[in-house]
């Protein structure tokens, strides 16, 4: 059974310019011990999705218009604020993109890690601080005792991200949400942080939701992948299915926009033209149609349904090109199985 099941989540923000429909009906599941990657570009709604889950959306201007979030038999959206905060930091830990601004600059690292232990576990100050030192050690921070009494500015970016992981792991969460955890880091430090996350996941058997824009990081970490575009999940499936048997032109476009190892200097990159749609007034059809080289008339008029692989692989794409009568597109996996429309 899934550890977390998000059903039809829609989030909007009221602004002076109108209502931004940041997340437009997103559903996904995370199984125990699995890593789900949500990949997409700036503004596609990937961060807002998990912020809604963690109750981190300022309301107003934000509003969860619809949706359910089932975590261990409870719909988190039906709980009171006090009940939800019980989950946050205890059963679900979270780390953020920018560790410098996500940690309190006026509090020592040790105290910040100790905080969830005091709140959720009822540990005394001294016991919590001692546990914080142990957590820093588990996050491979050398001289953990000395480091625990330092402030964030005394840490490098990579060290801060380790400290944030230590804090998120304090109460042995069942789910770790990592929102662009390595975007601000260099590749060598990124490799260290990803290794640490994998190691902790193996050892503690937790699940991870990894939010990223980097397909290479997805390839390294993910069991399953959701590709988001303009507030919706346009393709989902196992990492192999999404990378090797892409069924949505956006996924294909993203792959082709990156320089592969085989691409030589004489071959041009294939960028995706244009930019994502305005979510103040999302287009009536497919959000990607305006940029899609294969867009048909129907794509501009009607929102595509999600076509699912009936073999139960979980591979699905929200694209009219999966319709049995759609034309063939080179490089795109279409209709290998008799696809059916999701209810």
């Amino acid at each position, binding site marked *: 059974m899934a550890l977390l099941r998000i059903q039809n989540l829609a989030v909007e923000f009221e602004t002076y310019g109108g209502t931004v429909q940041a997340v437009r009906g997103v559903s996904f599941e995370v199984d125990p011990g699995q890593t789900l990657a949500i990949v997409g570009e700036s503004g596609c709604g990937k961060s807002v999705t998990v912020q809604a889950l963690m109750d981190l959306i300022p309301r107003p201007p934000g509003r969860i218009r619809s949706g359910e979030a089932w975590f261990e038999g409870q719909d988190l959206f039906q709980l009171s604020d006090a009940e939800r905060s019980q989950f946050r930091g205890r059963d679900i830990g979270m780390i953020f993109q920018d560790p410098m601004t996500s940690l309190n600059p006026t509090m020592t690292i040790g105290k910040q890690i100790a905080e969830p232990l005091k709140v959720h576990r009822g540990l005394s100050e001294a016991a919590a601080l001692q546990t914080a030192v142990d957590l820093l050690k588990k996050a491979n921070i050398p001289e953990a005792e000395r480091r625990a009494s330092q402030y964030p500015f005394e840490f490098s970016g990579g060290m801060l991200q380790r400290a944030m992981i230590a804090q998120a792991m304090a109460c042995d969460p069942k789910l770790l949400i990592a929102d662009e955890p390595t975007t601000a880091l260099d590749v060598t430090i990124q490799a260290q942080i990803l290794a640490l996350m994998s190691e902790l996941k193996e050892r503690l058997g937790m699940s991870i939701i990894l939010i990223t824009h980097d397909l290479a990081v997805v390839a390294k970490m993910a069991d399953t992948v959701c590709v988001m575009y303009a507030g919706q999940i346009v393709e989902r499936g196992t990492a192999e299915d999404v990378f*090797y048997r892409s069924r949505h032109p956006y996924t294909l476009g993203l792959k082709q926009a990156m320089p592969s190892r085989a691409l030589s200097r004489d071959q041009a990159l294939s960028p995706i033209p244009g930019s994502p749609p305005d979510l103040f007034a999302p287009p009536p059809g497919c959000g990607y149609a305006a940029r899609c080289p294969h867009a048909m008339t129907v794509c501009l008029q009607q929102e595509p349904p999600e076509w699912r692989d009936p073999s139960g692989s979980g591979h699905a794409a929200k694209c009219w090109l999966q319709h049995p009568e759609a034309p063939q597109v080179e490089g795109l996996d279409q209709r290998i199985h008799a696809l059916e429309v999701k209810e």
Partner: protein
Amino acid sequence: MIRTEQLRKFFDMGRGRRLHAVDGVTLKIEANEILGLVGESGSGKSTFGKTLIGLHERTSGEAFLGEDRLPAKFSASDHLRFSKSMQMIFQDPYASLNPRMTVLDIVGEGLSIRGERASSVRDRVADWLERVGLNADHMSRYPHEFSGGQRQRIGIARAMIIEPQFVVCDEPISALDVSVQAQVINLLDDLKKSMGLTLLFIAHDLSMVRYVSDRMAVMYMGVIVESGPSDEVFFNPLHPYTQFLIEANPEPDPASERAKPFSRLTGEISSPVDIKPGCRFADRCPKASSVCREETPPLKLVDGTRSSATRSIATRSIACHHA
């Protein structure tokens, strides 16, 4: 086209301590070549680019643009003179455009300063906005009205309108989304070909640098540890640091990524303050021996004719006692 000899840029940190941001970089960029400069944050790659075109005062060493020796400290007239030939595209398209200037003023400033008539400035700005994929009637707008990718195009138009020979691109795509990165790279490539530009492409994205540049130089703590034709450096790295860097660079391919063990490189790049003799990578290098901690390895030429894939005459250099 561009040549530096033992270029150094130190920053004074007070109490007699100095940060050796760039510590003796000798390199050449041939005409019409793209040299990729890679390295982690703090390796000195941006400082090198800025020092080269006179945005920082050089501490010591020499720099040449063609036959002209560049001054260590640019005066206002030096800037006016050399900015005709050398321009820069900056990393952050938000911070590098003045929010209170219109696109016309931003892109046309270089021409106005040189005394070009307002009507002619306007025509050329309109022309350049079209060339970088924007619209001529965008010129009365302000930077905040544009997306990151569009702003980077404005930055490119500003640099190119002067018709320079040499452009320093300092992380021009790292603030952009993947789909937009390819747009900007293709634009730079088109302009390079049509204008016969020479580029210094500073970036940390190894896959992109490999693809974009003819040659690649790897920087670590202010020094170049390896250089050579991009494909050779990328597919057959010789310096242990380059090896770790390439190994840590993930590829969008789940099968190969899962088969690959996590990088064994521990620790982080440290600040190049109070430099000790010896190799700067020695503290983190699994191959390090006593000689590495005592003697600084010079950047020396190695035979690089093994690969047939390269178009230029393959000269590779590496600074390592064990290579």
